[in-house]
């Protein structure tokens, strides 16, 4: 394998591009030191940009969402491999899909949603669509519009879902949160928390109507074709980041974290199955 001449890191996330650059700048520096080649950060606007970069070999590493990893894997199993996953402060590497509704609409759980309108975010989002779309039918809430729910709408994104629920455009919506902290703060991190902090909604006005099984956090992936020593060095760097530079680790994990722990492809087998299932459903 020939040695690499540069190393490109793709950065995803719900932050704006400038903040992402800033909070990952330290990682870039460390990586440059460790690998001895120029390292650059790229902040495409959506999942797809990063995934295409990884598939095409223009990006060498990135933290993906679980569904995003599944997509990359399904498109080309030989493209990337998961190496690390970020953990929460309690050591878990999970987050949740959360169903919300307005408190004054007398909806306390999915059972009250019969004949009502449910809002999803982006159909490509793990927590905003994929997981609930698979789990809800298992719990007896059919996903066919008109069967259990009156209709199912895509609002376009987590923020939009929350606003839609608040405005009453949909009766209930699904978004994500880390499940830690308190409901009234919108949990410790996630779309709800952001919306609350921005003053878009007041948690007093919302109730939680559903919570998914834990969803695995997306992995840090590296390109399979990279030389083994590069993979090793970079993995070791990120794994040890929490001890080396806590601030930096927080920045890379975009929030408080217990650090990164190793992960293997198997951890995402379920998500990949779910995604395949969803595809077949679409095909029919």
């Amino acid at each position, binding site marked *: 394998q020939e040695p690499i001449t540069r190393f*490109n890191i*793709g950065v995803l996330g*719900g*932050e*704006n*591009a*400038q903040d992402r*650059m*800033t909070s990952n700048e330290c990682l870039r520096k460390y990586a440059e030191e460790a690998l001895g080649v120029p390292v650059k950060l*790229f*902040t*495409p*606007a*959506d999942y*797809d*940009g*990063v995934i*295409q*970069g990884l*598939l*095409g070999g*223009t*990006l060498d590493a990135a933290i993906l969402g679980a569904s995003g990893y599944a997509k990359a894997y399904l498109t080309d199993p030989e493209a990337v491999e998961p190496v690390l996953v970020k953990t929460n402060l309690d050591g878990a590497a999970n987050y949740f899909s959360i169903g919300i509704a307005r408190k004054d609409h007398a909806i306390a759980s999915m059972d009250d949603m019969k004949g009502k309108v449910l809002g999803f975010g982006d159909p490509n989002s793990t927590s905003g669509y994929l997981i609930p779309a698979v789990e809800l039918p298992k719990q007896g809430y059919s996903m066919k519009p008109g069967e259990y729910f009156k209709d199912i709408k895509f609002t376009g*994104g987590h*923020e939009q879902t929350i*606003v839609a629920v608040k*405005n*009453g*455009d949909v009766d209930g919506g699904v978004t994500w949160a880390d499940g830690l*902290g*308190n*409901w*009234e*703060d919108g949990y410790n991190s996630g779309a709800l928390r*952001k*919306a609350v*902090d*921005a*003053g*878009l909604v*007041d*948690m*007093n*006005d919302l109730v939680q109507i559903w919570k998914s099984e834990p969803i695995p956090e997306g992995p840090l992936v590296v390109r399979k074709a990279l030389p083994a020593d590069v993979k090793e060095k970079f993995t070791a760097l990120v794994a040890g980041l929490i001890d080396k530079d806590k601030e930096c680790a927080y920045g890379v994990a975009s929030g408080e974290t217990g650090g990164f722990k190793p992960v293997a492809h198997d951890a995402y087998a379920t998500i990949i199955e779910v995604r395949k299932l969803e595809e077949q459903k679409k095909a029919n």
Partner: protein
Amino acid sequence: MTPQIPVTPAPALPAPAPLDAARRAIARQRRIALALPVLLLAYLFHAAIAFDLAGVAGRARWDNAVTLMGDFWSYKVHVTRQNRDGARPEVSIEGMRQARFAPDQEPGWVTRRPDGGVDVALPAGNEVHIAADGAARLVVDGTAYDVAPRGDGIAFDIPGPPAWMNASDRRLTATLPGARVTFTRARTEILRRQAGWELFFFDLQSPFYGRSLPELARLAVAGPQLRPGTPNIAAMGQDFWRNGIWHHGDVAWAMFETVLMAFLGTMGAGLVALPLAFLAASNFTPARLVRQVARRGFDFLRGVDALIWTIVLSRAFGPGPLTGSLAILLTDTGSFGKLFSEALENVDGKPIEGLRSTGAGALARNRWAVMPQISPVILSQLLYFLESNTRSATVIGAITGGGIGLLLVQAIQTQKDWEHVAYYIVLIVLVVMLMDWLSGRLRARLIGERA
């Protein structure tokens, strides 16, 4: 004035034919003049129904618009107390870690008490007092409300909360003029809205922060070096350029990247399209098949929007301005191919024949008889597209490429820094207007066309 013209209609008329013709003419005009607006209105009405105008109007969140407009020109200072660890309340701009005030920088309306409590004065004479143990007292219009964090929620005793208060046993939000106060068991947070784009010039880390304009001017020319070793004026420039909140340097780069994408895409497309256009022009390519292939090729390139090309190309070229440039290049090759081949078809054949009669070869004929005729068309189209592509490059960047569009769209979607959104919009508008003006000037200069 009495009409002296003897106007006696029909009987005196020599022939009814002209009158009938005139009536018909007017009737025809009436039909057209009435039908057009009616059709348009009918269509718009249909669209209003299809788009559910009434529903949208009902659901429109004008308060969001007000928030947004307000955020365009104002910023919020957060005073936050983490109730868990009982830490000292922090004061920061927009709650940003990089924009936390040092104790000596804190605004005058925040008063620290020696015991670790803090008093915050809000607009309209309202106040919040937070004691060292986290118990807070909110004073609104002279009435005091006490709220204290508890293990499982918050404690307060407010019978019949006023309309501006949204209270439950876990969370209390007070929306006050120019301020918002939130209590939960985890934290107590006060947001106070201030006019302006705070930290626009210098961030809190800069020694120039908080100085008045005359003071800065004085420092620029004379006075002690605030950062030893660097002249003040240079230090100011650096601090501005590297502003940690507004990132002027990066924004400028992003803006430049956007213009770069437009420039490379447009000009590259011109270079590629020119030779291909000959293949699509009937007077240069007699072979029908070649011509049709070239034309359909142009249609294809043009029909697929630049944005979709960006997606298609992002696999090969990854994120960055290259993908965006190539996407613009592909689409515009289609547009230019069509436009140039039309220009080629309209060239005057006489000069070409003139050159042919002297024994000039095909290359020389194209260079000297064809190019001078189409170069004004080419130039003006290139410049015209350059301006409009600057705008498209923003959109492309917003979706995959990079540049100012990315910053803008993300700033909008994360719904946090509306003043940054306003900043980007102003920048984009200025740059596009500048390109518009510049391309007009260049056109006028190079082709002698009316600007």
